[in-house]
């Protein structure tokens, strides 16, 4: 038990270190817009980005979400939407991103990944 907890703590510590290192490696070119990891960004920052660059910010998070859903289900977003349509749901760019935007507006303390997971619960 103690070994498992120690291993878990060590893994967490290693992840923190690797996260710090990867954040540095993922640093965007200085003049570029956006953030390196939109999924790890707070909804509060996302909301502020939405004010200034609504279309691009929505697309940025949806692209992240597409990767996440593909990793979870092995399906592309179009395949997921088509499957959802058969189950009586209708989704498009506006409604998908609208869900993410609404989630973040309602809970600015959450991470944007939480918004993606929440949408995924309806889609997948």
């Amino acid at each position, binding site marked *: 038990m103690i070994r498992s907890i120690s291993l878990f703590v060590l893994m967490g510590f290693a992840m923190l270190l690797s996260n710090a290192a990867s954040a540095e490696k993922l640093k965007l070119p*200085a003049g570029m817009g956006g953030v390196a990891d939109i999924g790890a960004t707070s909804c509060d*920052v996302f909301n502020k980005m939405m*004010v200034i660059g609504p*279309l691009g910010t929505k697309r940025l998070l949806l692209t992240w979400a597409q990767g996440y859903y593909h990793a979870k289900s092995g399906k592309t977003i179009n395949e997921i939407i088509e499957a959802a349509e058969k189950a009586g749901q209708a989704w498009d760019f506006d409604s998908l991103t609208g869900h993410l935007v609404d989630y973040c507006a309602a809970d600015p303390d959450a991470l944007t990944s939480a918004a993606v997971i929440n949408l995924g619960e309806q889609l997948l």
Partner: protein
Amino acid sequence: MTTVAINNSLGESKLWKPPIVGIVTFVLMLFAIALGHTLMVLIEHWLGHETTYIASIFLGAAGIVLLWYGVKSKNENLQTWIGFLAGLTIWMTWVEFFYMWYGRANWGMVPRMIMSDDGPTVSGTYPEYMVMGATIGLLLMQLCFYTFDKDTRCNMFLWFQKKLGLQEGLGPSTKTAKDRNYAIITFMETIYVTWFCYAWNLLCFDPGLVGAGEFYFAINMASVFVAFVWSGYCFSRLLKFKRISTALRYAIPVGSIFWVSVEVATKWKLFTEIWIHPWDYKIEMTVVFGAFLSLVLLLVLAPKKPSEVGRGRPA
């Protein structure tokens, strides 16, 4: 009779002589720049972004109609005011709001972010300004025209012509003061000066060019220094102006160049840009607006030379 009366009033006026004319026009220009920012924020707020983009097409067209009216006038003072107002209108609508539509809505650009220990925050260089930064080559190309134009009367371009040894080759100007239409001159001056000063700030703020460290700081310190010295030199010349119309036209670059250092100061958070937060600073901005209107009124009512109000100009 009227001309005599105007001449007398000008000669008797204890107020409208140097340095008052220069000081009033300079302060007016600073208020105009601040209120221009406020107006854009208010338009966005009142109309919403989507309507603003559509309205900007027609607001800009109204500016051109205004300019058309000014160009037809023979009154130099009126031409100057109209050229300035039309220039500001076109800049705000057909330039800034159009770039805003391209950057934010059409191209879907994401905002540039500032990374700090507290996490990312949205930079003040919005998508429209990222687009504007890309117009530097176009601006320089157009400024070449004025550098090589023998009819330009802008002191900066005349200085360039002198230093580049162009004056002999270009020959004397073919236009006299009476041949010039000050509405279109002031219109173009307003647009080019505003464009130049925006480009200046944007280049110095661009982290892709100057980073965000010591070089960025040094460049912007140099920028403030140049803006202070340049606008200070021009301001010292402006203080000697007697004619309201000429002072107004000269105050456009003086105020705009000075504003470059204001933009740097706000970037460094040395003070709050109350003009882009009118809702939070209602009283302050109301006072600024009131002061601006008072200065405009004073300048409109100020005694003018006959040449400023159309007398002696060709019909």
